[in-house]
């Protein structure tokens, strides 16, 4: 068990049956009362943020969570298959668990897989990925700075809004947190 003196950023604890990671904390103490740690934490399953005032001396249950670096191999009907990059063990994670992250998860990419009580419950992608365009309407020469965009498809099947000058085969940089086009890295 932890207590409040163990609280630091990134500490993983159980609250009401769900695993949380500490995001922020500070010491507070009413003049005539016990010391508390005002804590902001994030639910590792849902991403929801919770604020709790934890009283000094309160016991905190450690969350059985670990992250492993794994390579995404291929998709099956109901699951994505990943390989542990150190042990080469393979594990299938239900598509529903991965959710919208799959849009920015091309094959062979390395991701951090979160395990809770031994079960894979989510992945976190690198903030940026590089992807070649597989499908888009032809561009228009000279129209490079007006801010106009068009849809373009990448290998995962996701559609990104890109500037008009981007062509099939161009390699672009994408922010996986927002799904936004950032820049062209190479021309076809």
């Amino acid at each position, binding site marked *: 068990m932890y207590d409040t003196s163990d609280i630091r950023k990134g500490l993983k604890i159980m609250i009401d049956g769900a695993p949380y990671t500490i995001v922020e904390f*500070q*010491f*507070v*103490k*009413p*003049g*005539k*009362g*016990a*010391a*508390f740690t*005002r804590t902001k934490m994030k639910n590792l399953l849902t991403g929801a943020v919770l604020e*709790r*005032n*934890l*009283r000094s001396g*309160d*016991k905190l249950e450690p969350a059985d969570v670990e992250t492993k670096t794994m390579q995404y191999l291929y998709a099956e009907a109901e699951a994505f298959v990943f390989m542990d990059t150190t042990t080469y063990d393979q594990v299938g994670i239900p598509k529903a668990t991965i959710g919208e992250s799959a849009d920015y998860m091309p094959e062979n990419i390395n991701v951090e897989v979160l395990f809770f009580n031994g079960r894979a419950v989510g992945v976190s992608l690198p903030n940026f990925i590089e992807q070649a365009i597989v499908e888009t309407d032809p561009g228009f020469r000279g129209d490079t700075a007006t801010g106009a965009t068009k849809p373009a498809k990448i290998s995962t099947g996701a559609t990104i809004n890109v500037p008009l000058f981007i062509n099939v085969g161009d390699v672009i940089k994408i922010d996986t947190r927002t799904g936004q086009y950032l820049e062209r890295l190479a021309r076809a």
Partner: protein
Amino acid sequence: MVAAREVDEKLEARARILRAVRGWFEGQGFLEVDTPARVRSPGQEVHLDAVPSGDGHWLITSPEYHMKRLVAAGLPRIVQIAKCWRGNETGPHHRGEFTMVEWYRANAPLEALADDCEALLRAAAAAVGRDAAALGLAAPFARTTVRELCARHAGIDLAGDEDVAALQAKARAAGVAFGSATAWDDVFYQVFLDRIEPRLAEAGPTFVFDWPAPLGALARPKPGDPRVVERFELYAGGLELANAFGELTDPVEQRRRFEDESRTRSARGKQVYPIDEDLLAALPQMPPTAGIALGFDRLVMLVLGALDIGEVLAFGDERGA
């Protein structure tokens, strides 16, 4: 490392506010006193940890015991600007070493100290050319009670004399998670921190009167409603700025509270301090008195708009114990 110029400005402002505070008390006919910093009986309160200073002595957590003895000895209006030390307290509003302004008015009601606070805060703002109205200090401060705040912000009907099981049931019904708390004050402060303090931080300066009897400390029961004590706290700008008591002068009741606190300290494995027999012996001579402690560093924070107490201290980045 902070730029030297910035340090200069903050410390100069701090010095001007200190001068203004001294001047204000002098103008009100207060006698400035200087009581011992090393004592055999430091603050007994369960949640305070005194810092040891050798030879069976401790550094004061507050100058209150000695100052009450001076009031009992016949000094009707005294003030002290004292360094105090509290172990295991470091945070944005806390340092193990800090400066307290503590004053007493004999034969005055508790409300007189609230009036003092309003005038003192305005004087502090004026000392550094801050506009009292912009700081929200110009209009009379709001005055409310613990019961009213519990009802309004937590939906809890607080009596003050319910037992801890009843208080836990009220907190639970209000959706407050109080963990493993089994002490009355621990459950209460969970409600206070979760539901009330954030709302006080958004409000203008507010006096919170009539604290439940289990949080009485050195305050006397309120005439007409013994479920609460004569105590107020002043909150301003998200800071707990001051705590005031209608001072308890009944030595029998005071001894009972000290013994209670010693038992609780012992049960929780905390250091137990000798009961201050000199204070108990002096209480029967003490006239009805109102006394208050105001955090000077926090006063400077309020006036300058500082978010961390370290900003208003010389060497504030040395966080200490």
